[in-house]
Every structure is written in structure tokens, then in C-alpha cells.
């Protein structure tokens, strides 16, 4: 339930500044950054994602810790399923080839 999924910001959205595109294990989806302070997020940053929202900005090492934790908990598939399932701004999502 309180799954917190690490993702890296790979694209900013000038038209919708509250949406950024994140990469989570090769899956790219938009997430909402409205729960973070204005200007907190830059391209390349890592965030913790929960139900479509970035909850906090974290470091790259912390993101890797978090990924390993999800794997160890057997929740990495669930996390990917969740990120794939976000449809609220899925128009330009898709998998990384």
C-alpha cells in the first residue's frame, strides 16, 4: 500500500509544469510533482513515487537502495505494474527501447 517507487526525472513539461516524465526500470510515465516545493525538481533528479505523485526528492544511491529493497520484498513487479498502470497522462508514455 505504501509502496514508494524510485524513478529518475527524464523530461520536464513546459506546458504542464506539475508533470514530469520519470523512468522507472525502463518504463516511462508522467508523474505529478505538485507535492514538492516549486523549483525543487530538475532534469536527472531521482524521486520517490507513490500513487502517481512524487513524494520526495532523493539521491541516486538512495534510489538504488530503494530499488533493491523492493526486489528483496518481492514487490518490484508490483511497483512496475503500478507505474505502467498510471493513465492520467499516459499519452506520451511508453517503454524505453
Amino acid at each position, binding site marked *: *500500500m*505504501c509502496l*514508494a517507487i524510485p524513478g529518475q526525472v527524464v523530461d520536464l513539461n513546459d506546458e504542464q509544469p506539475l508533470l514530469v516524465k520519470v523512468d522507472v526500470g525502463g518504463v516511462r510515465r508522467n508523474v*505529478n510533482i*505538485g*507535492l*514538492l*516545493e516549486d523549483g525543487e525538481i530538475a532534469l536527472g533528479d531521482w524521486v*520517490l513515487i*507513490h*500513487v*502517481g*505523485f512524487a*513524494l*520526495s526528492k*532523493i*539521491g541516486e*544511491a*538512495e534510489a538504488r*537502495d*530503494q530499488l*533493491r*529493497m523492493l*526486489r*528483496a*520484498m*518481492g*514487490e518490484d513487479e508490483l511497483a512496475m*505494474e*503500478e*507505474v505502467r*498502470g*498510471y*493513465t*492520467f*497522462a499516459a499519452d506520451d508514455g511508453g517503454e524505453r527501447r
Partner: protein
Amino acid sequence: MTTTNETAPTLMKYVDEFRDPALIATVAHEIARTVDPARHYRIMEVCGGHTHAIYRHGLRDVLPDNVELVHGPGCPVCVLPTGRVDDGLAIAARPDTMLTCFGDMMRVPGTQGTPLELKARGADIRMVYSPLDALKLAQDNPGTHVCFFAIGFETTAPSTALTLLRARELDVRNFSVFCNHVTIVPAIRAILDSPDMRLDGFVGPGHVATITGCRPYEFVARRYGKPVVVAGFEPLDLLEGILMLLRQIRAGEAKVENQYRRIVPWEGNPAALRTLAAVFELRPYFEWRGLGFISQSALKLKDAFARWDGEVRFAVPGVRVTDPRAAQCGEVLKGVLKPPQCKLFGKECDPEHPVGALMVSSEGACAAYYRYARTAEAARA
């Protein structure tokens, strides 16, 4: 590695998967050195994610016998009383109405069945991964009212709040939230006030604290004299957290410490807290499964959002439903009983046919115990 094997033989089964295996053995050894063999320790892990991790990694086997872990109320679907499930399903039964909820909710039994079963009988109930997905469904289906069955602690509530702000901004009128968000601090207080609960310390919830920060737990130390350590979810995190608690207990201290500093800022997420305060207010009281009515323990939409408040728009039955008599979810939730001590455990109630919500979610103590500890115990027998 032979020395680590000697100090904690059961560690070896998962040693490869984790950060600093040698460190895990060191911490386990340090815990054994810190405890007073003449006394018993009862430590509550508040968060259901911790409960899951403890069973999955067999951490029970690493701890001395006199350190008992008591499972706390931090599993949103577990603490939701059946009456609220029924209320949500009553909204789903209305014509031209779609009920949306997270996957965890789909298999939680109401009086007339689970959301999944009602869906099979024709109700329009859909699983979403984000409250924003529910809002999108409302925008895409203007002839249908889309209600989001919101559950979760402070980790999840800000997302619902921001979705409501977005609904107001976009003036989406066929959208509402049936709000069941709860807050963890009053539940901890209720447990501390309960006469049958004797606890020596708390492992604080890691991801909830990402939002709340550590400060809200200070009353546990100050007023009740019990230590709290906010901890992460890897075996090393949990063991370190438990060691920090045991050290405080040994030194006769009670303070709030943060083991999960790499993720949890002491002050939490101020922007998310502001969003929560803009949309929600505290309910005077709310019923928790097993813990009963707890004052100021849940969130409702402020009057300014009444148009999007499912409870205001639809007269939900609001009937209090007692749990099946034989099921002892309440006792397990309070930590009075361990899962296998419930009369239904593994018989009438299993993950395929859950009678109580604790058997549904992977964060529920019963599901976690059923999945991991049962097989471990059978192997030992």
C-alpha cells in the same frame, strides 16, 4: 564469512540479497549483547510494510527470544471497518455511478461481498493506480459519476488532496471522493492508552514519516516515556532500528530517533502537509477495526470541497457492522493475539478466501504470517 555464520546461522539464507551482510550479522550480535536476558521486551512495528518485511525475511529468527515484535495498526485496508466498505459499495450500486479504488481494496470483504465480487455481479467498479486516474475517468465519462474510494495514511492522503484541488481547478463535477484517510498518531496514542497493551518501544513508520517527519512522534517519548525509532524496510534498517530502541531502553532513555535518514527528513514534506491542511480537516472521531472509535484520527473534506465529497453527495448507510464473531481481527490488530492464535486462521480464513481484511493485504499480519512464517515453522517442526 565463517564468523558471521557462527553468530547468526539463520542469516545466511538471505545474505546475498542485501546491503552489507556482514553488518547485518554485527547488528544481530550487538542486539544479543544489548538485551537483558532477565527481562522481556515488547516492541511494536507500527507499519504494515514493516510487518511484511519482518515475516518475509525471517527477522524473528535473528532476534533473541525475549524480544517480541508486536504488529501494529499501520495497514490501511486492515483497519477499515466493514461498515465503511459497505458504504463505498452502496455508492457503487447507484445508477450511472462508477466506483474506483486501489487494488488492495478489491478483495476486502463487505457484508454483501468484496468489490471484486460486486463487480462480477455487474457493478461498475474499477481499479486505479492513482487518484488522478479516477479523475481522468470522470473527465473521459461525463455521463457517469466517478467516485474514488480513498484509503491510506499520511503517505497517500496528500495525493488525494492534490487530486481534489485539481478537480476544483478543472471544475470536474462528476467526480467525488469517499474519504477514509486515517492518521497514524491518534492510533498510536489509543494503543498507548489501552490497558492491555504493555509496550517498550515503537519502530516508527518509514514512508508515512516521509510526509509527517519525526516530530509528531515526540509525544510518545515525552508523555509516555517510550522510545520511537523511525526505520526503513531492509533487514539491516529494521535490525538497526530495533538495536537503537534496545539501547535507549537499556540507558533508560526515551526519545525519537531517525534510522531512515537517507529517505526521511526530520521535518517531513512541508509542501505535502500544506496540501493536506488546505483540503482536509480532522473528523471528531472515526471507527477503526479492532481499535474502536478513536477521536480525531481520520480526515474529512473541508466544507469548501463539499461538492466533491462522496459522503455529502450520497447518503451512505453509515451502519456499523460487527466483524464475524469467530474472526479475531481486532485482537490481532491490537497485538493481543498472534495471527495463528485466531480460530479461523488457515481454516475458514486464508488469502484465497479472506474472512477478515488482515488476510487480504500483503501488509496485513495474517497474510504475511500465512505466506512466510507458516512454512518456516513447518520446516522447523
